[in-house]
């Protein structure tokens, strides 16, 4: 017997139960579904029938349900607690939306059914477009992109197409100005389309310096600026109109990364600020669930100038006789096999209808209030680089200067938060801030939850200064810190056999 009574025979600890991969639970002969065997008959597979085993394990349904239940229990979700992941808008995901997305009239229809049999689906897409149009003040909407980054591709392709349509002289327009603080998808998108990424340094206020921007734009060859607003430093680009004017003057377009639209929805229309294209992460602002990494949906709204270049398919015609336009001379092309993330459209529209114009306004107000509340309640213990530069928007940005002499890093704080029953905030992003901690509480937290967060964060700061072993945290999660170096050095990307 082990001397430590915390130890168990099984290695499991109460409701914390270890669960090996399905491949280690293979029980040949077990079935998890009951499809009948087919009567032997001549096949018409042209000699290409699979021979031999695929190698899939066999498990009965009870084993499978238990397996994935147990896996789920090793996860933290919004339903578990505060999930203040900056730039990700981890807000409440209403169950109503799951229910309506599963209505057979939405879930059990085929993308290529006759249009006459899907008028309700097309009308739903139209209605979603209407809400997005009114909320952004921008007339065009492309629904197809699969997520935010895909929306960026869509927007930047439209810009390229518009430039190309503007004449051969535009062929040289390859420069895309991107702030250093931008999300990685922005430069990756621009580069993927053959643009040259020109970085705009942060101005000390967490923003783009308009003078500096005008200078950069003036250097010629500008295709576009890609700007996130509210930006990833958690503040509003107050010179956004000057920036828009400058890029337009330079002959380029203004792409806005709409990841942070939650801070302004119902209060500010990007169309009023000179934006030409912006993706909207329905999985952020409009609460379609993140699902452990996806699926998302990234519709793009367009200005008059860019709308003609939107990709196919497009929804055209009148209610009751709506059609999908699959080819259009000006359209820059196609993004995806079908018409977009319909399941997410249903959820997002249900979310919008539930809130209404009044509720959406409250969304942004409360999201911003909550972030400012956290900023003010914590700025004395965690350094806040831009706290001086005006109110925060829906995120509170801290850095690790205040922890300097403790030996405790941003990462350690994040891991210690895990022990406290919190999900960590976004860390080390934006890159312009050393040891960044980007906290986005969202509007769906109670004040009590925010106060609890404050108390924990203050307590952790104190412990950091007191020399607590936060560098070893977490202690209480399903796993201690994982060895990412080993994972990358000798990648094991699939199961190979038991007992490695």
């Amino acid at each position: 017997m082990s001397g430590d009574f915390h130890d168990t025979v099984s290695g499991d600890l109460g409701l914390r139960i270890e669960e090996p991969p399905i491949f280690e639970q293979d029980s040949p002969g077990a079935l998890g579904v009951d499809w009948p065997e087919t009567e032997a008959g001549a096949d018409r597979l042209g000699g290409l029938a699979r021979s031999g085993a695929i190698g899939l394990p066999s498990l009965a349904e009870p084993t499978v349900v238990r397996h994935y239940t147990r896996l789920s229990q090793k996860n933290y979700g919004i339903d578990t607690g505060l999930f203040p992941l900056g730039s990700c808008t981890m807000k409440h995901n209403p169950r109503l939306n799951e229910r309506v997305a599963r209505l057979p009239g939405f879930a059990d229809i085929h993308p290529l059914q006759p249009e006459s049999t899907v008028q309700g689906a097309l009308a739903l897409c139209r209605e979603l477009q209407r809400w997005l149009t009114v909320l952004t003040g921008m007339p065009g909407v492309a629904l197809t992109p699969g997520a935010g980054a895909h929306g960026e591709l869509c927007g930047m392709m439209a810009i390229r197409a518009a430039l190309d349509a503007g004449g051969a002289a535009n062929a040289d327009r390859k420069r895309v100005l991107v702030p250093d603080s931008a999300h990685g998808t922005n430069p990756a998108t621009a580069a993927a389309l053959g643009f040259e990424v020109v970085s705009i340094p942060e101005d000390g206020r967490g923003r783009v310096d308009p003078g500096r921007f005008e200078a950069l734009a003036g250097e010629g060859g500008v295709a576009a600026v890609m700007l996130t607003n509210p930006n990833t430093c958690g503040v509003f680009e107050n010179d956004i109109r000057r920036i828009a004017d400058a890029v337009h003057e330079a002959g380029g377009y203004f792409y806005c990364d709409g990841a942070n639209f939650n801070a302004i929805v119902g209060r500010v229309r990007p169309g009023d600020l000179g934006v030409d294209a912006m993706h909207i992460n329905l999985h952020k602002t409009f609460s379609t669930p993140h699902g452990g990494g996806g699926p998302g949906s990234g519709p793009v709204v367009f200005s008059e100038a860019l709308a003609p270049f939107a990709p196919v398919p497009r929804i055209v015609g009148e209610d009751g006789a709506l059609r999908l336009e699959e080819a259009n001379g000006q359209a820059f092309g196609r993004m995806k096999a079908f018409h977009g993330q319909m399941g997410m459209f249903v959820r997002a529209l249900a979310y919008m209808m539930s809130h209404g114009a009044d509720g959406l306004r409250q969304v942004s107000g409360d999201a911003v209030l909550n972030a400012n509340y956290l900023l003010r309640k914590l700025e004395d213990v965690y350094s806040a680089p831009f706290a001086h530069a005006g109110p925060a928007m829906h995120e509170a940005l801290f850095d690790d200067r205040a922890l300097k002499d403790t030996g405790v890093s941003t990462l350690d704080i994040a891991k210690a938060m895990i022990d406290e029953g919190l999900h960590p905030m976004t860390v080390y992003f934006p890159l312009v801030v050393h040891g960044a901690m980007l906290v986005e509480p969202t509007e769906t937290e109670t004040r009590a939850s925010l106060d609890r967060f404050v108390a924990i964060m203050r307590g952790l700061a104190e412990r950091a200064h007191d020399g607590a072993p936060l560098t070893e945290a977490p202690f209480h999660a399903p796993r201690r810190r994982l060895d990412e170096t080993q994972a990358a050095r000798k990648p094991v990307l699939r199961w190979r056999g038991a007992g490695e």
Partner: protein
Amino acid sequence: MRYLPITDADRSGMLQAIGAPSVEALFADVPEGALLAEPVDLPRHAGEFEVERRLSRLAARNRAAGAGPFFCGAGSYRHHIPAAVDYLIQRGEFLTSYTPYQPEIAQGTLQYLFEFQTQVCLLTGMEVANASMYDGATAAAEAVTMANRVTRRSKAVVSGNLHPHYRDTAATLARFQGFALEAGPPMPAGGEDLASRIDDETSCVVVQYPDLFGNISDFSALAEAAHAKGALLVVVVTEIVALGALRPPGEMGADIVAAEGQSLGNAMGFGGPHLGLFAARTRHMRQMPGRLCGETVDADGRRGYVLTLATREQHIRRERATSNICTNSGLCSLAFTIHLTLLGETGLKRLAALNHAGAVSLADRLGARVVTPAFFNEFTVRLAGDAAGAVEQLAGEGILAGVPVSRLHPGAGLDDLLLVAVTETTDEEDLAALAEALS
């Protein structure tokens, strides 16, 4: 409003705590005139019952596939999804979690991704698979750009029997990335000669298996021809259940498999969200797009999983990333994995056999009108007249008879061709109804 917990009392207390006069004051940085004083011109908030009623009415204006005989395929398939799948993916710990960047409290997501990657490898016969792409079409487009990177070439030779939406998705990227994409004309009965079109500039050949028209062909020789010229073979699969019955592309020499995984675990849902599968050879691992989950150990030496090789990705590599993808199809891959785990070796094979048997049974009834010599669960039928018209008419009679080729290849002179797909959800009565309707 039911989703918004901050009360008026909270709000004034919090404003006081931060020394702000009002919520509006927090928007001081918004330029003059751009801050709306009033709610926008959209309806006010609505209760759950009301929202559900309105959306249910919209849903009722669509004809659900389950309402009658149904034969549409062409990239999206109606399969039965076990009830356990839908329950499990809705568990909040899965549904409401984020990309597993904090692995200590995301082992659930990470472990299923590891299982998913392994399953995709097994099905496709490939060595390494990523944690998903948006859909089959974007996976195929990424496969081409990956081949370009691997070969440092920039011309893709594309089968005319590749789903035209896939072709167009890749062609759109080609246009903006500045590489060549040479697609042949559709050949409904197969027999395309692609090998001869490969040259020293070719980065890859892209074929579909089964192809748009349902044909299945052995690509081993094509793979050899491609490899001989230093090009890669990209195999696209739009009906992943087929790989329960067919030789896997990996056995034929495929270098990259880009597939649509919707058929397992995911509803058709009018075309999305779907699930892009992406598998390749280990030697090209570092050129792959998307997330990869890998096994490792924790500080106590216990096995665990993390996202790995992130230096390929946009959040680390930025403009030098292999792809700009960030959010992928996480929950769809969970549905896929659970469904496939339930099926297991025997279940998947039986499912595939049932699909094929149903299709054979239909083809037998339709006889010589079937254009496709060898197929899995979908094939092409030549009608006497316009297929689109026939489909429209049959829809009026309650039969969704399939996808007219003209919908995908308009103006290509293939207007009399109809794609029909049969799955395990198609029953004997359905088959009889279609055979009768088309006769």
